[in-house]
């Protein structure tokens, strides 16, 4: 194969933008949950269950987990692009990262809606 450096993938802007938007979503969630925990301070399992019985809390929590995983994917891929230069190894790690993040999202859905 010819060894030449080719760049110009014509993507990157969306990832950069998504990383910022997901950061804002996560910040709002953490502040809001912090406020709820300070105000209502659920002490036992029943109170926690009651809190997450609220549909809006569930939806926002899921939004938070999706944001977290999407944000983590972009960040981890950035680290891999910087430090892992062997294409095969990088692709393998990237696939593993995507699979584990997907598992986390499904797991989060299961926990929130169980």
């Amino acid at each position, binding site marked *: 194969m010819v060894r030449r450096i080719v760049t110009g993938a014509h*993507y990157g*802007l969306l990832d950069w933008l998504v990383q910022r938007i997901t950061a804002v979503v996560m910040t709002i969630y953490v502040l809001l949950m912090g406020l709820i925990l300070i105000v209502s301070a659920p002490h036992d399992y029943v109170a926690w269950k009651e809190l997450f019985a609220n549909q809006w809390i569930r939806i926002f929590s899921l939004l938070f987990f999706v944001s977290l995983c999407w944000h983590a994917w972009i960040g981890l891929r*950035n680290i891999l692009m910087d430090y892992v230069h062997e294409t095969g190894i990088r692709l393998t790690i990237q696939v593993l990262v995507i699979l584990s993040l997907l598992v986390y999202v499904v797991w989060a859905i299961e926990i929130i809606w169980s």
Partner: protein
Amino acid sequence: MRFSIYRFDPDKDVKPYMQEFDIMLEPADKMLLDALIRIKTVDDSLSLRRSCREGVCGSDGMNINGRNGLACITPVSELKEPVVLRPLPGLPVIRDLIVDMTQFFQQYHSIKPYLINNDPPPETERLQSPEERAELDGVYECVLCACCSTACPSFWWNPDKFVGPAGLLQAYRFLADSRDQAAAERLDNLEDPYRLFRCHSIMNCVDTCPKELNPTKAINKIKGMMVKRTV
């Protein structure tokens, strides 16, 4: 004054080493470059690039006590002893303080660092309003000394693919120029996870620039232009 200077001559040395110099400076030796020229009277094999000796040509970029800068505009009075001098980090060393700048200039050339305007040239100049001209302040002053790009970790890891802060500052210089007509092509050329988006706003470039320019700000303006045309 005590100096510890990186020495490497590929014809003679197996490995680079640090050489100590203890020299008496003359009263006229105000800048680090003066001191280096004084050292060359003791050991003329010490190799470095220099030309204008007033911070305009950008030839004598080097790592001074751990920070990149131009020797000719760095006062010796501000330096802690021993003054540790190394070549600019991340680029291949040719000899002593001289590095091979090929990759740096390849990235610079890749952004087409010239005005692209297909209109027939007017009788006189292509005029700009004072406001349009003001857009270029803080971006046109770059002397291409490579202090910023060689201080940038993203450039260290991907010097073949990431344009680097110097190249991107120049890219913005032409994107911001009201006389240039190739903004869309320039943005197309930069929209790439490596060429532009390796910048993680580490801001070593801002910290190190001897001309006190702000490449990170220029890079963010490029990203802003991309957002504007896409969203």
